[in-house]
């Protein structure tokens, strides 16, 4: 398959692949088993210039486009979704600053993020605000030159490990959807602590914690964009990163296919390799076809974003939806193709299957993606009438 990638994109792919093979594959099972954060791998990725791939050169990044970044995510995801979640969530946390931050904020935070010296997290979700972000209860009250933050964020990726947190809090409840604002909170600020680290089904090397704000005072300058723009910041951030979750799906699906075909070729039953059975071949064919279709949707969404398209919500949502449903199906089938061996921890596909599940849930569940796509279709039809 030729994906019409540029020479630089192929370079990024090879580099990410080398990190995956040399630095991630040898340790992924251990990181998974012991819930261990991939600190060394993040350092290796920083040294390889991958942390600042999508950050403009004037802020110390590589100034590459969305597709370049997604290609890196895909390669890392082939090896381990726990690591790729850590990597992708770093960008999720960075987008509010990148898309809406002032020049001072960009100058202050982006160079360290690009160099991989500081990790980032994005805090929107709360106990009572999952799919329905309007349910958030964390508040930020302006007192003099400071905002006082109170409340608890839940299930925040990179929690405890990140140095920079971009969060959404209510600044004026009476204004409804215009009542939330986005802020930067730095680790170590008094009144800002972390809850317990979650014990998860998959992506176990990624860190997921609560963020607890108890009269946490942050300087007024930490407000991102204007007061009241919190939900717009959050929605644009999720729009920009959503298809990246699709590239995670493409990566883990391809990784599972590569593993299971390698095994099945050598597995002899009834006197022949199980890959000689048409039933198995047809499963493999469906798995690869769906994965290629998912890849097309993801690359297409990325190219749309890179071309400067204004409205790419639907394309991003379709890429996320299809690629992550595909990831779940393909990783499950990869276990099936390997039979009992696929179910065992000696092989990586059982982990891939556990890991894949989260992709259908975070950054907007796949039910919510369908809602986004459906509403957009109805809106368009109404406009055309």
């Amino acid at each position, binding site marked *: 398959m030729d994906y019409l990638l540029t*020479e*630089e994109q192929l*370079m*990024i792919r090879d*580099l990410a692949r*080398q*990190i995956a093979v*040399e*630095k991630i594959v040898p340790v992924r099972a251990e990181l998974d088993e012991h819930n261990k954060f991939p600190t060394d791998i993040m350092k*290796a990725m920083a*040294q*390889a*210039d*991958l942390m600042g*791939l999508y950050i403009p050169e004037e802020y110390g990044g*590589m100034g590459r486009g969305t597709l370049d970044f997604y290609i890196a995510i895909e390669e890392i995801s082939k090896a381990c979704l726990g690591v790729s979640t850590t990597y992708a969530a770093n960008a999720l946390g960075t987008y509010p600053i990148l898309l809406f931050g002032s020049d001072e904020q960009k100058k202050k935070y982006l160079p360290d993020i690009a160099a991989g010296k500081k990790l980032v997290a994005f805090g929107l979700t709360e106990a009572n605000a999952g799919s329905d972000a309007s349910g958030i209860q964390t508040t930020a009250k302006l007192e003099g030159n400071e905002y006082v933050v109170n409340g608890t964020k839940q299930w925040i990726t990179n929690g405890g490990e990140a140095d920079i947190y971009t969060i959404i809090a209510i600044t004026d409840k009476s204004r409804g959807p215009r009542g939330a604002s986005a802020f930067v909170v730095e680790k170590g600020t008094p009144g800002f602590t972390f809850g317990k680290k979650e014990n998860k089904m998959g992506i176990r090397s990624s860190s997921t914690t609560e963020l607890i704000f108890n009269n946490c005072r942050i300087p007024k300058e930490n407000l991102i964009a204007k007061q009241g723009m919190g939900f717009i910041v959050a929605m644009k951030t999720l729009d920009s990163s959503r298809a990246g979750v699709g590239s995670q799906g493409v990566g883990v699906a391809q990784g599972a296919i590569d593993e299971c075909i390698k095994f099945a070729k050598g597995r002899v039953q009834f006197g022949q390799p199980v890959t000689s059975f048409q039933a198995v071949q047809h499963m493999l064919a469906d798995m690869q076809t769906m994965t290629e279709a998912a890849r097309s949707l993801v690359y297409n969404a990325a190219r749309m974003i890179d071309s400067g398209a204004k409205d790419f919500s639907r394309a991003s949502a379709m890429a996320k939806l299809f690629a992550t449903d595909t990831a779940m199906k393909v990783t499950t089938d990869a276990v099936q193709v390997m039979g009992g061996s696929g179910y065992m921890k000696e092989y990586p596909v059982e982990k891939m299957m556990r890991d894949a599940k989260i992709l259908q849930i975070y950054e907007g569940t796949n039910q919510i993606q369908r809602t986004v796509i459906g509403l957009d279709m109805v809106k368009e039809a109404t406009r055309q009438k």
Partner: protein
Amino acid sequence: MNIIVLVKQVPDTSEVKINRETNTLIRDGVPSIINPFDMFAIEEALRLREKHGGKVTALTMGPPQAAEALKEAVSLGVDDVVLLSDRAFAGADTWATSYALSMGIRKIGQYDLVIAGKQAIDGDTAQVGPETADMLGIPFIAYIRKIEKVENDTMVVERMMDEGYDVVETSLPCLITVVKEINQPRVPSLKGKMKAKSLKVTAWSAKDVNADENKLGLKGSPTQVVRIFPPAPRGGREMLSGSVADQVAAVAKKLKEQSLI
């Protein structure tokens, strides 16, 4: 601190095949890589530069394709590269290779440290490091597993021994060879790869480094390969079978018979 790293391009295989007629390695169809031990040398040089500043230069002698190995060194972060490539260098043994490299090093000029790998995975002699140091007239220490400190014009290193290690202090400049225990090589950086892509490697000829043609290549090589052959398997082995207890009893019996216990 200015460092020169000696980098050899080798076939990517641990099972080299040999042309029976010419007694040379068959390289056709085998992809080339940087000798794995040299990757540790490059990494250590980069770490020293990060700590002490200065410049890292990678030096190789080889056919024009060896430029690829140098480009890889650049992608890892090496500042400068030198390729010694000339028909006059062809057919060199370790002695003639060391001579050419030492002349290349003299031409590069000012340096504090030369780092080489413990040995090359194709030739396997481990001779080029010490010979080059000797020709340059600088101290040489083999099998370095750690550089403890660099201060003024001295360096303290750990030399790996069969049991334990030696702590050695040396004056600079000197030449060391490194073992795999010394570090974990990094992967390239994107900036490095982009720099490597656009890099034009120009070769230095024998004349460029003021080398005496009589000491180069086949002519300058005192070693002659008479014959290459796989060593005959050592005979006289006996395989025991049965339960562990039976096998232990059989060994004990044999040892007693030969009055060894």
